[in-house]
């Protein structure tokens, strides 16, 4: 990334904070509703200092990772299954689409009833939020694999599991990434929503306690952290993954 872009981004963020400060200083909104940037900064510092924020981040990320790993593994398996058996796809395809359209947060009540206020409940919401997006994307990625690549694999003796592992999955991987990305964003929403409602540790529950104590600065500081994590995961995980794929497949696919 060019230094120029970074410089522009810094200017952008500084601009936002400046505008925010102006809104605050000129009393354009009640100060009880919009805290000053420095209040939020202090809330962030306090959260880091007393460990609550870091602990929250750790907890949420742990739940996210557990849920996402399960969702991706199961989603790929399900996607391969319906790609392999067209009848299966015809039968359950629309059902999966329906399930995918359910927002993660809508699963929370069921998770509560099934698992209680436990890590298991939150991970369930994460998994179920991401699973179907991964499965559906995996299915269409596999459908888009050129038949000659599969024929070439079979021609050289690959079949069954080997054909799936050494030809079909790598051939569809670039397209599957889109599913992982979608899955991750649903999973992240799922973790936070479940934490807000369950209120057992994690960033979501910090949001909740901040609200209860009327600590607006704290609430905003947690929102900022959630956003930063989103940007980092995208940059460190998915951009990197896409770059690796690009370096092999070449710029045009």
């Amino acid at each position, binding site marked *: 990334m060019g230094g120029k872009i970074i410089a522009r981004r810094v200017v952008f963020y500084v601009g936002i904070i400046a505008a925010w400060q102006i809104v605050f200083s000129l009393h354009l909104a009640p100060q009880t509703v919009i805290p000053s940037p420095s209040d939020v900064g202090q809330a962030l510092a306090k959260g880091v200092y007393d460990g609550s924020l870091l602990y929250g981040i750790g907890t949420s990320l742990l739940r996210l990772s557990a849920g996402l790993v399960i969702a991706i593994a199961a989603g790929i398996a399900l996607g391969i299954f319906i790609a392999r058996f067209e009848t299966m796809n015809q039968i359950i395809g629309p059902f999966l689409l329906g399930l995918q359209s359910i927002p993660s947060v809508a699963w929370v009540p069921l998770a509560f009833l099934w698992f209680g206020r436990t890590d298991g409940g939150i991970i369930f919401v994460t998994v179920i939020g991401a699973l179907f997006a991964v499965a559906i994307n995996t299915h269409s990625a596999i459908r888009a694999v*050129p038949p*000659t*690549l599969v*024929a*070439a*694999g*079979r*021609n*050289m*003796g*690959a*079949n069954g599991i*080997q054909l799936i592992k*050494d*030809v079909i999955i*790598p*051939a569809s*991987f670039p397209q599957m990434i889109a599913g992982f990305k979608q899955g991750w964003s649903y999973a992240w929403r799922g973790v936070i929503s479940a934490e807000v409602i369950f209120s057992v540790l994690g960033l979501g529950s910090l949001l909740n306690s901040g609200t209860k104590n009327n600590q607006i600065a704290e609430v905003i500081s947690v929102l900022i952290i959630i956003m930063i994590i989103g940007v980092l995961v995208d940059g460190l995980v998915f951009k990197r993954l896409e770059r690796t*794929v690009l*370096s*092999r*497949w*070449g*710029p*045009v*696919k």
Partner: protein
Amino acid sequence: MTKLQARNIVKHFDHNGTPILALDGVNLDVEEGDFVCLVGPSGCGKSTFLNIIAGLEKPDSGEILLNGKLIDTPGPDRTMVFQEGALFPWLKVVDNVEFGLKIAGIPKEERRQISKRYLDMMQLEKFSESYTYQLSTGMKQRVAIARALAMDPEILLMDEPFAALDSQTRDLLFVELQLIWERTKKTIIFVTHNIAESVVLGSKVAIFKHRPSRIKKEIVIDYRRPRLAEDENLLKYQHAIIQELKNEVIEQKKSGD
């Protein structure tokens, strides 16, 4: 010795309920060490026939015998060079060449030796660590040939492997392929649209005809090698093939096609 026999191969495809007869009783005998070129009009079933030999498609009826034994599944004893190369973009050139060897469970060191031999033969040693998008079309085609040869197949199947190449590259590969054929003594079945190509490469040219889709005639090309594309002595063979194909068109017109 007869390497491969195709007996009465029939295959139809379904086009939205209408059956299309792609092969209607194809017979072919290929001797060990033969270089058979299959020519014929577009859509007459050449690729389908090759896919059936490769075991990638199943015929409705008829059988394929390899060394006298019935075959009906794909196998590394019949490797194919696909028209578009069909290389794996997620693998380096060397790993593409070693793919089938790896599937066969051959240990890494032995794989390296084999892939090196064929990459050297194809003059690709410098590109073994490249990814396929970094190669030109002709280089890709050579990787595909190296990959097919690395399996040390009984029969090499080639489906218009040079169709996408410019004529200079193609002429070079004509010579290379003839040398490889002489060096490895492989049996080759080579599908092409191009009649000139078929007489340069083939020890035998099998002419496919349409409706019914069958092999109509086989012409032996007994001429010294390596043959060059511009060799005028090959013209008489070309004319014989063109004449056969013309008759075919005339017959079709007569039968009201």
